[in-house]
Every structure is written in structure tokens, then in C-alpha cells.
């Protein structure tokens, strides 16, 4: 019970983080505005096209917003690596419990990000495109949680690997890896029809396909997000299996690495 208090302060630290609110929410409104400005040409289009257009922008904005939050998570992990080491030895907060709390907390942060972005996007886009609310909000929330879990596990593995390798000077580069990966894969999926195997093997794309599908109510496909009517249909169960399997595998590695790391302090950063 005492360790639950960590969750409270972990969430408080996220919700009072200015970089989080700027990069994951405020900065995303610029993208949102771009979509709003170019929505005029779709005002008279069928509902399906208007919904797909809104969903496309939402999926990209949420995907990048969560990836941007992952940058903050990596920094947090890097600079808290010494306390984590100490606490796993001399407190009730073992590395496994800490992982579970951080994992859950980050998913909540992702859901909050997605909800805030939806609350801004929906009235804005609806004013031009009519009723464009998501068809399956619960499915959408589940996919957001899946994407958040995936980014979290990628982040822990890359950051802890850098700490273990004593690559203290590459902290900034490591922190941006999930964002770079996320942006590259999401943009690729936005404009290119990816192969079935590629999407199944790439969990970020699998989660993005699920997000788009739950928003529009259309079955997931291999199609580019900008041309959603084409492409080969994908089984949502397989997409979920890809997201869950990758998250599970990376989480197992992450927990081990978190337990093995000895922290990197300012003293070591100077020495390396």
C-alpha cells in the first residue's frame, strides 16, 4: 500500500511538467490547425471521407504526442536511475513494482493526452466537417493504451541499455529515439501503403492501424492513411497480438535491465 504513493507523485510530476504540456499537447495544436485549414475541400464530401480525414489527423497527432511524451519519460528514467537503484535495494519500491507503476502511469498519461487532444480537435473539425466523432471510443482508448504501453517498453529498454553501457553522454539522443522511430513509421503509414507483414512486424504501425480503424469504424487495412479505401484487410486480433507480444517481450527485457542498471550520476557523466 505504501508504494502506491509513488503513483500519486509520478502522476503529479507528469501533470505539472511544462515540457509535457508543451510538446505533447500545445505543439500538437499546430498540426491540428494545419488539418483544420485544409479541411475546406472536404466540407461537401461523404461522411466516410470526412471521418477518415479527421481520423487521419487525430491518429497522427496522438501518435506523435505520445512519442513526444516518451522523450520526457526517457529523460525521467535517465536522471532517476540512481534513486531507482537505491530504492530497489533499501525501500519497498522494488524495480518490478516501480516498472508496474511507471507503466500504468504512462498509459494514464497517454489516455489523458488523447482525451485532451480529442476535446480540442472534435469541436474544431466538427465546425467544418459536421459530426466526425470516433465510431468506437472504447476501442480507440484501448489502442491508445496499447500504443502508450509500446512506447513505454521501447523507452525503458533503450534508456536502461544506455545507462548500462555507461553511454551517459548519449542521453539526449537515446531520449529522442522513440520519437524519431514513431514519427518515421507514422509518416510512412500516412502516405504509403505498407505490406501486411510489415505492419504486423512493426507494432507502432499495427497500433496506428488499430487507432484509425476504431476511429472510423472501418476494418484495419494496409492502405495509406491518406487513401484509406484501398489496401488489404487486416485481422484486428493479429494487430493486437503484435502490439501485445512486442510490449511483453520488451517489458521483460526492460525489467531485467532496470534491475541490472546501477545508475548514472553527474559525476560519471563528467568522467565519461
Amino acid at each position, binding site marked *: 500500500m505504501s508504494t502506491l*504513493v509513488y503513483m500519486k507523485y509520478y502522476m*503529479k*510530476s507528469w501533470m505539472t511538467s511544462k515540457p509535457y504540456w508543451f510538446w505533447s499537447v500545445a505543439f500538437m495544436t499546430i498540426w491540428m490547425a494545419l488539418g483544420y485549414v485544409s479541411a475546406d475541400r472536404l466540407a461537401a464530401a461523404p461522411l466516410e471521407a470526412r471521418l477518415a480525414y479527421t481520423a487521419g489527423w487525430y491518429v497522427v497527432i496522438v501518435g506523435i504526442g505520445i512519442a513526444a511524451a516518451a522523450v520526457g519519460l526517457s529523460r525521467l528514467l535517465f536522471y532517476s536511475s*540512481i534513486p531507482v*537503484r537505491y530504492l*530497489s535495494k*533499501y525501500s519497498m519500491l522494488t524495480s518490478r513494482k516501480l516498472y508496474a507503476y511507471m507503466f500504468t502511469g504512462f498509459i494514464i498519461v497517454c489516455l489523458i493526452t488523447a482525451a485532451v487532444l480529442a476535446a480540442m480537435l472534435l469541436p474544431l473539425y466538427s465546425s467544418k466537417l459536421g459530426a466526425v466523432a470516433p465510431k468506437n471510443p472504447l476501442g480507440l482508448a484501448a489502442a491508445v493504451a496499447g500504443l502508450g504501453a509500446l512506447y513505454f517498453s521501447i523507452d525503458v529498454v533503450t534508456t536502461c541499455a544506455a545507462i548500462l553501457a555507461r553511454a551517459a553522454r548519449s542521453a539526449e539522443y537515446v531520449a529522442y529515439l522513440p520519437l524519431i522511430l514513431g514519427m518515421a513509421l507514422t509518416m510512412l503509414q500516412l502516405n504509403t501503403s505498407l505490406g501486411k507483414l510489415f505492419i504486423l512486424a512493426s507494432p507502432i504501425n499495427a497500433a496506428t492501424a488499430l487507432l484509425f480503424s476504431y476511429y472510423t469504424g472501418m476494418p484495419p487495412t494496409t492502405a495509406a492513411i491518406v487513401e484509406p479505401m484501398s489496401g488489404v484487410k487486416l485481422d484486428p486480433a493479429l494487430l493486437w497480438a503484435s502490439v501485445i507480444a512486442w510490449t511483453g517481450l520488451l517489458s521483460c527485457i526492460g525489467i531485467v535491465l532496470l534491475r541490472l542498471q546501477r545508475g548514472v550520476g553527474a*559525476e560519471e557523466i563528467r568522467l565519461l
Partner: protein
Amino acid sequence: MIVFEGVVAGYVKGRPVLRGITASLKPPCIILGPNGAGKTTLFRVILGLTPVSSGRVTIDGRDIDSLVGAVGLVSTNLREVYTLLSLPLRDIAKLYTAICNGDYEWFVNMMDELGFGRILAARLHKMSAGERRMALNLLALSIKSKYVLLDEPFENLDPRSRARLMKLLLSNSGRLIINTHATWLLERLEGWKAYIMVSGKLYGPIEASKLPRLGLVKGRSSKAELVLEVDGSYVSLVQGAGMPISNIDSLDRLYEVIAL
């Protein structure tokens, strides 16, 4: 008891900071040494933060490498241990006292009593060095641990706070292991053991209250209570001769004995 058996440790391969430490530390004890001697690294090894390249460290017979969830065993005032989340001091104290079995009420009361209550809402990086030092000292003491490791607890404190903290430490001495380069406090440490740390080696133990009466003499003396190896030379601690420890503020002046 914290036992070191031939411990070699450091941050860069081939450049050990601790060079074969063998000692048994039992509170109350003080580790004296000039800056850069390896005192903080010794604490970091106990906390599991600095890897040991050879040798072994045990706490009450348990190897530190295998320790997990040993609540109430060790607490410290090292700042790096309290940077888990970027939060105001009040929240950090609530969090750490909750997960490490501490007493938050005691911490707040002591902060008020020692005149530092005003900084509870501040973050560690916004505090002055003295405020931060006192806050972390009290946080370490508020955790109900068997061993409290205080790294330079008096550094940057004003004279009044220093005296108040000294009084508090003496009333908690049964669980304290302090490291410092300051020597002014030695006369008050009746019943404490003292170790001297120089260039990554630990010498002692010796009665802490006896140290002020000893003087620093260059070379190896047959009357020496302790002989220290400093940068390839020797310094002896001899009663009634040399530069008296009671006359120097800090063991940093050890190097003057060799150089001059």
C-alpha cells in the same frame, strides 16, 4: 556492521577510487579525509551505486549485491538518491518516508524547529546549498534505518544551524556513519570510532575524541598512532608533535605537511 573486504571500486576501468578497503564500520563512526579521498565513493558503494570491481561489501552479513527491498537498513543524505521525481521538498519527503519507512511528521517538525520550515514548498535545485544540505540531513534521519550515512553533513551550514545539527546528531549517534573533511567536531564525539581516508585507502579505527590531541608529522614515526600513505609519502599521527589536528579546520591541510 558494514564490512569491506579488499574492496576496489571506481568509475572508470583501471582508475580505482577505492584501492583495497578492508574495514568494519559500526555506528557511531566518522570517516575523516581530505576532499577527493574517496569518502563519498565509499558511501556510494554501500548504497550499491558504484560498482565494486573486486572485493565484497556486506551489511549485517548480507552481500550488498543481493540486497532487495531491505527497508530500514540504510538511509543517506546524498542528493542524487532523492532525485526520483522533480517535486517540491514536501512531496519528496512524503514519498520517501512512505516507501522507506520514515517519519514524515518528525521531518516536518525538525525542519520547523531548526528554522527551515519555509523551504518545504521549494524544489531541491531552487534551495541554497545550506538549505539543501540541512533538508537532506533531516530526510536521511527521518527514515527509520539502522545505518544513516551522512556525507559532509555540516558543509555550507551557517554556524547556528551547524550547532543545532550537531546536537541532533549526538542524540541519534547510535546509527550514524559520517564522513567529513572538517575536524572541529571531533572533540564532541566521545565514544565514536574514527577512520582516516586518504587516496582511496582507509586507516583506523582510532578513538575520535583522541584525534584532536594528535599531530601530523611528515614521515614514518615509531611513536605513531597511525601512519598514512599520501601520494607516495608518509604522514604519521603522533601525540604531542607536528601540526596538531585540533589546530586545523580541515584534513585538506594534510597535503601541506607533505609539501612544506
